[in-house]
Every structure is written in C-alpha cells, then in structure tokens.
C-alpha cells in the first residue's frame, strides 16, 4: 500500500503510461506510412507551441473539465452518470434561451444568468434519472443513457421547428446578440499586458472551469455535504447509521452533477459558437467519463486529464490540417492514452513497485 512514494504514483506512473501509449501510437502511424516523430512534433507544437495552440487546447479542456467534474461528483456517491451528454445539451438550451430572449447590456450580467440557466437545465435533466434511482430503484446508468437520446431528440425538434430563424439552412439558433459575447483569453490577458492569440476560442469560461475545480474540491473534501456524499458512496448502511439520508444525498449529488455538465454550455455555446447548433456537445459528455476516471475523480486530476485531452484534440486538429493522417487515427491515439493511463496503469505500477521495494531494502 505504501510501497511507492506518492510523487512516483502521481507523476511517474502516468508518465510511463503515456510513453507506452505514445510508442504504440507511433507504431500505428508508421503502419499507415507516416512519420511518427514529425507527427508528435506537430502535435506538441500545434497544441502547446503557441498561445494560439494553447487557446484551442484550453478551450477543449474547459469542456472536458465541466463534464469530467460532473462525472466525478456523481461518482463519489457511486452514481455513474453517463448522462453528461444530454445534460450539457440541455445546458446549451438554457444558455440559448437566456441569451436570445433577454436584452443583455453587457456580458458581466449575461454570464451569471446564462450559467444559472445552463446549470438549471442540466440539473433538471439529471434530476429525473436521480429521482427514479433514489425512489424507484431504476438503474441510473440506463436512465441517463435514455435521457441522452431523449435530449437529442428534444433539441433536434426545437432547433428544426421552433428556434431556427426562417429561411436558415442550418438547424441552429440565430447568433447571440453582442451583449452576450464573452471575453476571450486574448481580451482578458490583454488587460494585464500578456499577449495571447486573438483567434483561439478559449474564453473566460476556462477561468470559471478552474473555479469550478476549486469549488468541487471544497465541496467534496471540505463541506458536510461532500462528507455525506463520500460516506454514502462508500457504504450505504454506514451512511444510514450516521443519519445520512440516501434519497436526499442522491438527489443533491445528481443535481450538482447535472448542473456542472450543463455549465459546459457557457464555453461551447456562449463562448465559442455564440449560437446553439445541433450536437453542440460532440461527445464531450463521454470524454468526461474518461477524464473523470483518469483523474481518479479528483478535481485536480480531472483538470490535468482534461488538459491532456484538450491537447489530443488540438494536436489532432493540427495533424489533420497539415498531414494526411486520417482523423480516425487521432481517435485511436486517444483510445491508447485512455487505455494505458486509465486501465493498464498497473502494468507500469507493478514493476515500479518492485524497483522501489528493492531500492528500499538496499537502503535499509
């Protein structure tokens, strides 16, 4: 249990796992006749080599932080929320309604309102599966999957039939008015004199995501509610013994989880697209599962995993721009990263433990 020092567990193991994933990915790239070294260089350069690259990396990371936190919070109560996709979709609807239907003089006012709406819509979409789980015992994995499909159908209906401006091809709302446009990292960092790419979509939502990480951390490890969530997650009989009410905690946890997923919409809908399009979530809800699991359900881990995935997305986009590597290969690389860092970590840990044990024996 205490064979490996914590720093090695937190740094060395993910690092070696990433190296393994990278080696295997290089093998695949070689197999389709491309140059893996150049590809890695391009990915790293494209994603991290410029403020422009960072701007995209952080933009994607912001999405994954929200959905990852949503999964992580629920997981502490041992609720497996697969519904991030649907909740984020509904969050987008909330943002769109707020941004389009009210005259906003300035984003400072629009942002809290949009966040509230996004959170509320996401929470509502999580509340029904939560209630069914808590009261009727319907398995939350099924109900949240079903609610993803139902959410997609609902949004499709609204965008095609109700919210689409007349004559527009695109099943999307009209552009949000300028009063709702969020400042980008370019604008924000410009205030303190740091130059940052103007073109990248990373915006103030990233800072809010960072704030969400801190809040979730405090919620889980510093508040009574978090204490009760974790207790219930570890043992329901013990929780009941301590006077913790499972139904209440399940509901609260899922509401928070759904609200977090919903809040993703301030980044992609309000911050980037500035209108609501079909399928705006683009699988970020599912990536959130991988992010949460890889981040060991800890907000800081979630942040790191989200940035890793942001890197893979943006690096992958650069590859797609400048090479003939097909975009599905990026998916393969993501899969290998998830596999090695998330599921095969013991493959690295076990030999490492041996090394540390012999080192210690020699030291002693």
């Amino acid at each position, binding site marked *: 249990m205490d064979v490996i020092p914590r720093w090695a567990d937190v740094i060395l193991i993910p690092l070696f796992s990433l190296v393994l994933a990278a080696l295997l990915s290089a093998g695949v790239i070689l197999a389709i006749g491309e140059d893996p070294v150049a590809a890695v260089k391009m990915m790293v350069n494209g994603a991290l080599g410029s403020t422009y690259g960072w701007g995209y990396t952080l933009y994607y990371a912001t999405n994954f932080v929200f959905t990852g936190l949503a999964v992580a919070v629920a997981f502490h109560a041992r609720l497996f929320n697969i519904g991030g996709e649907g909740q984020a979709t509904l969050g987008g609807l909330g943002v769109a309604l707020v941004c389009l239907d009210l005259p906003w003089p300035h984003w400072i006012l629009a942002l809290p309102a949009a966040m509230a709406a996004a959170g509320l819509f996401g929470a509502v979409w999580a509340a029904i599966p939560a209630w069914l789980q808590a009261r009727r015992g319907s398995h939350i994995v099924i109900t949240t999957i079903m609610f993803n499909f139902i959410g997609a159908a609902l949004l499709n209906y609204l965008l095609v039939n109700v919210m689409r401006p007349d004559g527009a091809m695109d099943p999307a709302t009209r552009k949000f008015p300028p009063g709702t446009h969020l400042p980008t990292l370019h604008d924000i960092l410009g205030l303190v004199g740091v130059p940052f790419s103007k073109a990248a979509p990373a915006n103030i939502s990233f800072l809010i995501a960072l704030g969400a990480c801190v809040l979730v951390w405090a919620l889980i490890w510093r508040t*009574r509610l978090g204490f009760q969530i*974790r*207790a219930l997650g570890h*043992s329901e009989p013990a929780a*009941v*013994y*301590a*006077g*913790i009410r499972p139904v209440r905690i399940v509901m609260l946890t899922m509401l928070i989880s759904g609200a977090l997923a919903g809040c993703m919409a301030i980044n992609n809908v309000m911050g980037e697209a500035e209108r609501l399009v079909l399928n705006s979530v683009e699988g970020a809800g599912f990536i959130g599962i991988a992010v949460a699991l890889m981040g060991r359900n800890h907000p800081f881990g979630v942040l790191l995993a989200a940035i890793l995935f942001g890197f893979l997305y943006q690096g992958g986009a650069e590859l797609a721009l400048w090479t003939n590597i097909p975009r599905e290969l990026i998916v393969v690389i993501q899969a290998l990263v998830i596999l090695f860092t998330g599921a095969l970590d013991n493959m690295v840990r076990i030999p490492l433990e041996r090394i540390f044990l012999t080192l210690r024996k020699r030291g002693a």
Partner: protein
Amino acid sequence: MEQHRPPDPAIELKGISKAFGSVQANKGIDLRVMPGTIHGIIGENGAGKSTLMSILYGFYKADAGEVFIHGQRTRIPDSQAAIRAGIGMVFQHFKLVQNFTVLENVILGAEDGRRLRPELFRARGALKRLAEDYELIVDPDAKIEDLGVGMQQRVEILKALYRQADILILDEPTGVLTPAEADHLFRILDNLRAEGKTILLITHKLREIMAITDTVSVMRRGEMTATVNTAETSPEHLAELMVGRKVLLRVDKPLATPGKTVLEVEDLRVTDSAGVARLKGISLNVRAGEILGIAGVAGNGQSHLLEVLGGIRPATGTVRVNGAPIDLSGRCSDGQSRRARGVAHVPEDRQREGLIMEFAAWENMAFGYHHAPAYQKNALLMDNAAIRADTVTKMGHFDIRPPNPNLAARNFSGGNQQKLVLAREIEQHPDLLVVGQPTRGVDIGAIEFIHQRIVALRDAGKAVLLVSVELEEILSLSDRVAVMFDGRIMGERQAAQTDEKELGLLMAGMHGGAD
C-alpha cells in the same frame, strides 16, 4: 518443544515469512502440530495469525519458508494444492457465495463432472451422511444469505469435510457464535479429533483454549513466541504471554448508584420488510449510572432494538429519552436527531455500519457527528484541522494503535477499529450509550480496556444499554440483565443475583422462577 520421533507431525512449518508492503506480518515462523490433536493459536489483533493460516491454505504466498504435511515437503501455491494436501480452512470472514444454496456452496470447486445435477445429487447424499456423523445439520437448499452466522459456519466446515480434509484450520470460529452454538462446535471438533483429524484453532477466548486444545502457540508481532501444552498452563499465563503484561480477566467495578431514568421504552413493536414481527411489545428502562445488559441468542430481536434506538429503523410504541418522547416513525427522525438528543450508538457490525473503511481515522471520528458545531470552521466548511486534533486526543485516550489519524480505517486491526468506534461514541459523553457486541473479535488486552471504558462511562453518571451474545460479558459488565426471546423480554434480573444457567434458560424461552 519435545521431540517425538514417530509419527511425523501433521503440519510442520519452517521459517515462514510474509510481508505486506512494508508490514512484516510473519517473521521466520516455525510450528509443529501432531496428528490427531487440537492445536490452539492465540495472539493480539494483528499478530499475524490469519496471515500464517492463509499461507498454509495457499491463499497467500509466503516470501520464505517451507511447509511439511505429514513429513512430506509440500508446496502450496494455491488453495487447490492445499485441498489436495488434505487441508481445509474456515476463514475468519466466511468465503461463501451469499445467493447460492448450501449445496451449491459445498460442491463449488469440488465437482467431478461437468454437469451440475448429478453433482448436486451426490453432494446431497454426502451431506446427509456428514450431518449424521457430526451433528452438522443444515438445510441443503437454504440460501446462505438467509442463514445465521452459526449455520454459515457449519456450511464452511461441511465444505472442508466434503473435500475430505484431515487437517482443519478454524480462524476465530466462535467470534460470532452464541454460547450454545460454540458448545456445539466444540462437540464437533471433539468428534473430529477422535477420528484422528488434526485441528488448528485460532481464538481470542482463553476459556476455549483451555477447554479444548491439546497444545497452544502464542504469536506476537509476527513471531511465534511460545508453544506450550495446554495442560501445563493457565489463562493468566497465556494472557501474559500474549500481551506481554498481566491482564485482568475479570471486570472490577464499584457498585452502581443509579440516578434518574434516562431511557424509557414502552410497548415497542417492529415489523421488518418481509412482514415478520421482530419486536413484539418491548418495555424497559435504563437509569443514569447503570448498565442494562440485554442477553439473548442472536436473532431474537436485540439487533432490531439497537437499530430502533439508533434511529436506523422505524417502529411503533414509545421511547422517551430524559423524559421527552422521540419520534419513531422514521420520517423526521434518524441517526442525526438521536445524536442531538444525547443518544450514542455503537453498532454491532463495525465494518458494515460503524465505520467507513475507506475513510481515514479522523474522518471516521467525525462520522455521524459531522454536523457538530465544534467540527465546523464556518457555515460552509468543516474544520478538518480541528477534527484531526480531536482525533489525536481521542486516539490517545483509547490507546488506538497506530496513533495515526490519517490512516484509513481498513488498515487498523479489528480491535483498534472497534476502539475507534467506541472512542467516537463514548467521548461525545452521551446521556445514553447504546452498544452492541462491543468486543466481538477483539483480543483480550483490548477487551479489558473496552470494558473499563464502558464502566467509566457508567460511573460518570451515564446510562448504558449493552447488547451482547457473550453471556460472560453481560454478566461481568451489567448491573441489571434483561433477556430477550422471540421479540419479547423474557425476564429481568440483577446481575449479581443470577448466573449463566438461569439466563440460559430464559434465553431458550423458558420462564425460570419468579419474574
């Protein structure tokens, strides 16, 4: 150690060592057990007894050392090898499949054919014979989850015998048994010994060691410190060997000076989810400065009584604490409101209910008291530093080892886990302590300590309601004893004026003398 030449020892261990990470659980252990004998092994919690037995059974792999079975050097890489070598083991925590029937559990892994039906048929016959031979009577078609622990243990023994074990290891078999069940078990062990089988028995109860074993070994901190013939030793001596100091085997307590009534229970009734009446009109009261012991064979409603008082289970009837009634409907009253009313509850099952095994000691110290004002930094946040400091203090009071508040509950020994729960509940200075099976599976050093603390609480003028299946414990701790049978109180006695025999009759549902 005396050196018989023939016959070969049934079991001989040489230099067995085993480390878990940095914990050295067994250090160069040697052991010889003669065939046809019952060999006891004692030692404090965490001394390494279970580890050693698990190695012998192939469940763990030893880092070093050799095993000889009937003089033959035997490698035991897995349980299958152990079974082949004729070893059977009844683990401290049973290894049964809860939703399988007895029969299915017995044949699991010992099936000869690929199809199940003939196997089940054969096993049914074998079980019938075993039942006749050893009084091991169980319903072969009952689901394990519906059986009491005593029955589950029989299934474990049957599993070993069905595999024709001639060496049987029992790890704390009586920890969860009622006295009657324990007596039954010892009769069976006697029979097995008479048949020439060899038995290794781990227990914390010196009385059992004295009653049934031929030889006994003592373990301390991973080492085998002594092996003696039972006939040549005494409980006091063994206790000293085990703990390294003199241990009081009886509780010395001053006379009680009961004050006002703290707990009044009237006509308490509970029906469980299956619709079975579990409490059928319980009335009792406990006064400040006294310990009321509830005796009874497990399954007669004591657990339900504890759960109702602890706020886990709704009931009908009246319960008053310090004169004010508490809500029993389960709607607006739960564990939280009980605690607010000065009721502390030590549950029977520390691992399932009393602790969150993954939580650190300090988190467990706040468990159930997470709303306590002393533990809050402000309206939003808990004051973890304060909780940690408080935990260190309480760990000191209760001599919990290791005194590390950051260690997860899982990593404390059973005795220390129990002390964690007791420290948490007792140190709240409740008006009423409701406590179930306070010393189950705990070594004698810790038992002594726990008993002292419960008495100290009484002497501080608090009321204690104690539920235990250990009659000895009930008799030595309580001031008054109530006996439960079939959801009713069969009778109440002053502890000083009764004995195990009289209580035993009441526990069996027979009214003895005047009430």
